Structure formats: C-alpha cells, structure tokens
C-alpha cells in the first residue's frame, strides 16, 4: 500500500492563525487586565486614593478575602469534574462553630480541635461524594440539601448564640499576625492554591478530572475510575472548606451562628469569573485567585469611595454576568467546522 499522503489544500493561512492567537490571548488575560484597571482606578480616585493603597487597607483586604478564596478553591475541584458543591460554605461555618465549641465547651487544645474539624469537613465531603457518585443523586440538589441540613445543625449547636469565650488565644494571634506586611492567613491561601494548581494542572488526576467534566462516558471508557475520582474531589473540597472555617475563626475571634451563605456566593462568583480567564471555558486555580482579588479589590475600593451597602452585591453580580457573557460570545466565535 502506498504511503503517499493526499495532496490537501491548505486549511489555514498564517494570518488567520495570528488573529485566533491574539483573540485567545486577549480572552485569557481580560480579567487580569480588568483587575489592574480597577486597582489603578481606586488608587487615583480622590475619594479612595489616600486609604486604598495603604498597607493597612491591603492587609485587611487580603485577610478578609482569605476565607472566600479558600472556599472558591474548594468549589472548583468538584466543578472541574462537572459537579456543584453548594455545601462548602455551610461546611466552613460548621468548622468555625465546631472548633470554637470544642475549645470553649470541652476545653480541648487547639491542635485537637483543628484535627477534629478537618476530619468532620472531609467526612461531609465524603457523604456528598458517595451520594452523588454511588447513588447517582443530582449534585445540585444533594449539596443544597446538605447545606440546609448543616445550617440547621449550626443553629441547634449554638442555640443562636455567638461563641466568644474560650477560644485559643494562639489561634486569634495567628489570625492577626502579618509577615512582611502580608497576613499569615494569606500565606495559607497561597500554599493551598499552589497545591491545587499542581494537582489540577500537573497531575494525571487533575487531567482526568477535566476529562470527566467534559465527557464522563468517554472518560470512563479510557479507564478513568470516575466515581472514585469525583468522590475524592468532594472530600478535598470538604477538607479545604473546613480549613477555611478555622481561618475564619482565627480572623474574627468568635463564631457566629451563621450558615455560611455569606461566604458561598462571593466564592461562587469568583470561581465562575475565574473560569473566563487563564484557561477560558474551564475552572482553574489561577483564574479563581484572580477572580477573588478582582471582586475584593473592587468592593474595597467602592466601600472606601463611600458607596452604599447595596453597591457591592450589585457590582459582583454585574461583573459575573458580564464576564460570563463575554466569554460565551468569544467561545461562539471559535465556532466548529464540519
């Protein structure tokens, strides 16, 4: 049989390739550019410029956003494989309340409280993962149910009261300490983000999760044990969420009877904003971190500029809608040949 390849008409011209490259470059970096733009804007705006760029403000900004960042990172693990986990916010809230309770009511040392909380968080993730994979329950509804259930348990455990006393001073000290002007809690976010980046972008496990997210049947038929992989992603999400809960306690020094939704929604917005950047169309770690920074810088700037309380949620929502709309349009341009 002859080895000759059919003479084929060239399907691409170099110019077209360049247009596509430029477009994808613009697309991947649009969110980062917006972040810089917003930061510059508030640095020169008369109403906010004095405080916005101060070390104190940036430090507060980083430490308040640390928990949201961790929850956003927890969210993207199941999201990459195509599953929602609405329970991460509530999971973090359980961890905040439980760690405070273990220390103040049972006088347990900080280390034990942390280990127990992380174990409980992982267990909640495991239950989610088992319900979703083994029993094939809809992830959206299952984790929403789990979040409601956990919110109720928090009410019961605290009796609606804030836990103020008996919390380890070491923990609160940790939450208030900065190194080289950057709060310690932000370093934790950086470490977790680095580990997740490695896991998702640089390991067979991460690549398999993306494959499952794109086509679960095809993934199964190339030997990916998708049930196990997805379940593990829920367990990791639960673990990270519980760590976020402990950081929240470290930062605020008290555990309110909050069900965690106030953490969940900004985190969801950041994760979705992030999926329009760096690797457009896919949830990714670097994009998520940029998404968190974008939302927090904008909100901080608006607050300093004296905007009213309703402005931040309106801004968050509008940013999310714009970003998703933008990336959908660009995605459509890419089109599909026959």
């Amino acid at each position: 049989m002859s080895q000759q390849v059919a003479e084929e008409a060239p399907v691409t011209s170099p110019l077209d390739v360049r247009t596509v490259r430029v477009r994808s470059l613009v697309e991947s970096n649009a969110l980062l550019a917006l972040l810089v733009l917003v930061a510059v804007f508030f640095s020169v705006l008369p109403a906010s410029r004095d405080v916005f760029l101060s070390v104190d403000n940036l430090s507060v900004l980083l430490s308040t956003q640390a928990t949201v960042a961790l929850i956003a990172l927890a969210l993207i693990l199941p999201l990459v494989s195509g599953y929602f986990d609405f329970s991460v916010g509530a999971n973090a809230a359980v961890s905040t309340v439980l760690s405070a309770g273990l220390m103040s009511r049972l006088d347990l040392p900080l280390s034990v409280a942390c280990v127990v909380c992380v174990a409980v968080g992982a267990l909640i993730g495991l239950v989610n993962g088992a319900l979703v994979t083994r029993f094939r329950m809809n992830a959206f509804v299952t984790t929403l149910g789990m979040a409601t259930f956990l919110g109720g348990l928090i009410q019961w455990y605290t009796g609606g009261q804030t836990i103020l006393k008996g919390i380890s001073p070491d923990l609160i000290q940790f939450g208030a300490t900065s190194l080289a002007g950057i709060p310690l809690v932000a370093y934790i976010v950086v470490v977790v983000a680095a580990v997740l980046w490695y896991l998702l972008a640089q390991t067979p496990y991460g690549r398999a999760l993306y494959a499952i997210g794109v086509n679960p049947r095809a993934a199964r038929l190339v030997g990916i044990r998708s049930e196990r992989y997805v379940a593990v992603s829920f367990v990791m999400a639960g673990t990270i969420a519980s760590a976020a809960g402990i950081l929240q306690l470290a930062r605020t020094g008290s555990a309110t009877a909050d069900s965690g939704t106030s953490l969940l929604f900004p985190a969801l917005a950041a994760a979705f904003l992030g999926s329009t950047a760096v690797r457009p169309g896919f949830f990714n770690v670097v994009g998520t971190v940029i998404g968190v920074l974008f939302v927090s810088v904008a909100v901080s700037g608006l607050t300093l500029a004296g905007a009213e309380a309703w402005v931040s949620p309106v801004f968050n929502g509008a940013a999310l809608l714009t970003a998703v709309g933008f990336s959908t349009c660009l995605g459509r341009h890419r089109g599909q040949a026959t």
Partner: protein
Amino acid sequence: MTNTHSEEVAVRLTGIRKSFGPTKALDDAELVLRRGTVHALLGGNGSGKSTALKILAGVHEADAGVIQVGREQWPARTWSAAAGSGAGLRFVHQDLGLFDALSVAENFALDAGYPTTAVRSVRWKELERRVVSLLDRFEIAADPRQPVGSLRPAQRTMVAIARALQDDDSTRAVLVLDEPTATLPAHESEVLLGAIRRRAELGQTVLLVSHRMQEVLSVAQDFTVFRDGRTVATLSGENPTEDRLVALMTGRELERAPQEPAATTAAPPAAGSVSLQVENLVSGPLRGVTLAVRQGEIVGVTGLVGSGRSSLLKTVFGAHRPESGTITLSGRSQSGAEDVKARMAQGVAYVAEDRVAESSLMELTVRENISVSRLRRFWRPRGMNAAEERRSAADLVRRHRVKTTGVDGVFSSLSGGNQQKAVLARWLCRDPSLLLLDEPTQGVDVMSRRDIYDTIRQSVSAGCAVLVASSDFAELCALCDRVLVLQDGVVTAELSGTRLTPDHLTAATQSSVLTTGDQP
C-alpha cells in the same frame, strides 16, 4: 443522457464561502438542483458538505455567495431558516427529531399544530383523519395512535419525511435528507430507498447526502462532488461508476485496495497464540457466545441491530459485567469483576461506536484527547511533561494522518473522520494486544476510511489481535480474516475465505428474519 427531467432550477448555490476561525470550510462552492430530480451531494469528511447543508438550513451564516430557490434570489448573508422554510426547503436530519414516546399523530401535530376547537382544546378526531390521509399518501403502514418508538427504523424515517412535507407536499417543496440510512441496517435502508424512489417518481425534488455509494447510485440522477470546500464536479444525467465518484472525491484514482480480500485470508488459524478466548458469555443481549481471536488476526462480528455486537465488545473491555461465562486474555483467565482500567492494563483497547458520546472530549485539545489514555506516562514529580506530551501527540497525528491545525487545536474543530483517526491514535499508542473496534468507519469518508484500514492492518502485522463489530458488509469483507454472525445473542454462522462476501453475509444475518416474517 436522459433529459426527461425539467431544466427548471429548484435550488442554486453560487460562490458560497464560509470560514470557521482559521479553517476555510467552503471556498466558492456551487450546487444546482434541477426540479424533479434526486440530487446526491458527495464529498469526504471535511469537504464542506455538512457546512453547505447547515448554511442551507440557516444554522450557519455564509460569508459570501448567492442562494436561489425557485425564481427568488437571496445574498447568502441574509439567508435564514425562515427564508428557507418559506421558499419550500424541508429538512430531515440524521437525528430525526422524533418524540419516541408520543404517538405518530402527535409527532405530526407538534410540528404543524394541533387542530383546535373554539376554546383551544384539541380536536383529536380531526387530527387522526389528517394523519391517516398523510400516512396513506406516503405509504407508511402505521397507526396514528401508535407510539413512534414502536415503529421499524425505515418507517420512523418515513414518518420524519412525511412530517417535514405535511404542509406542502406539492412539487414546489425540496426535501433535504442528511445521511438518512447511516444508522439503518441493510434491509431497512432498502425499504427506505424504495420509498424515496417512489416520491421522486411523483416529482419530488430531493437533495440526498450519504456516504454509502451504492445507495446513492441507485437513487440519484445528478451528483455534485465537494472536495476541500470546493465543487469539483457536477454530473447531470450521466450514470457514473462508483470508482469515478470515489476518484472525484479523493482527487486521485484509488487502487481498489479496501475491496480486495485481505492477504492473510488463507493463513492457518494456528498462526498466533490466542489473544482472546470467550466461552458461553452471557451479558445483556448475549446468550452464550463462544469465540477466539488469535494474534495477527482480524475477526469481524456482525448481526442486526440488537443482536449484541456492541455488548460483546463492551463486556470484553470490562465496561459491562458478564452474568456468566468466561473471558481469557492471552491465557490469563478473567474473574469478570475487572473494570475498564484493569482490562486496559492487560493490553485491551476499545474504540466505541458512538464517537461523539463515548470517545470524544470535544472541548479539550487534540493533544489531550490522544494522551488521555496514558496520562501516567507523561507525569514526573515536577509535573506533566508538556514538551514530551506535545511531541508524542504531534508524532501520532502525523503517523495516523490526522488533518488538524495543530495538536493544541480544539478536538471539535476536526472533521468526523479525523476525530476517529485521533481516537484510534489514542489507543494504538498503548501498543494494545487486543483491539476492539465498534463501527470504526461509521460516518467516515472514503479517504479516512482507507487510512483507518491501513492503520488496523499495520497493528495486526505487529502482532495485535483485532475484533471488529460492524454492520457494513463491504468493510467486513475487505478487512476481516473471518466474520462471525450474531443472531439473538448467539453466534449462528462463521464465514471466511471465498464465502466471505457481502451476499453471504446478508444471507447469514437475514436468514431467521426472512423465515419468521420480517418482524422487528
């Protein structure tokens, strides 16, 4: 020359251009349909014929060109689905768009509207009368109250055709059929083609797209051939041979290699050791299948839809768990509890029948689609070795002649045939000892088909054993050393040597159907 048909133009496309990003799908394409003829649109995968159809259907907007239907003309940029439907174009796509759970009558009504009373309640009697008369006119033997899912495949297609033409079955309407027989077994295709032929005799204008040459030749009078987005030939009123059409599609004279029996036909069965031994396998529709495949051998499996072809392959691959029976891979007997990963570790590879649903990671890159079967190979403690992965993918793309804009291009931008070649590359890079192929060339054009056959033969000469499930008899005869016929879950015949011909296969697969009266 037959010039019994009018020279009146029903549809004319001129100078149609369309690009998707950097890819030129259509470059000055032309197509002229004469009224009252069956016109076949031919071309390999990626030739632009699906794009042309989608432009005509108003799914894609052309970049340039003119569309004429009847006496009216439109600049192609302003063309729309509504304009097409107003001008009398009626489409029946490969996915028929029927609602299986609903009755025949309701399938008609959902398209054309329900006849209603003054208070908007449905007049069922009138609907039924209307549908009975339609079924009559289109010669469909079905009850209006019968669920569409219970119809035979050819009847379902006819229902879809009748539904498309229900509001306008005058000769003004132009019926566009996209791969109407692609998923039909041979005898169902015959029934459907007969029906299309009768419609054509009544003056219906039909545009037919199909990969099956013999079918096209048996119904069409005119032929348009696309290659690389251009119209390379328009044959009107001639009777071209299959070879001539294939030569036009490929742009080269094919030595009729795929049609020749494989050189190893006469090889003694003891040539290699047994790679796969299956005994009394019961799983899903399989009711006790026994077979063996040796190293260096290509064994085919065929049978009607529902005979268990696909289940056999999936069970051997570990995607289905068998109820009973034994599977032995290169002498290692299997417990039956192994999953896909465990079978892959023993050298089994599997190309699924449904490329879109079961093989493709559409949104990921070509590189990711290829390396997904052996991700560990590229992993180092420092992370994925991107350079090596890219090099390996580029090498495989070249070796398997995958036409792509680069290994980092999105998988969905490849044509169907090239996607299939990439999926094959995904598996062959693992050097499998047993290759399971389910309809490896379904919806694949002639050129890609030849590349795929070459690839399969190469892996066989390297010692791989191949089990191919297919409903394409010409393919089985060209590719296989022997073919097993499955009927109702058991092997009822084995054909090899001189008995391995499409006619013998047709006889062997149809035998019980013919004797029991052609029931689905």
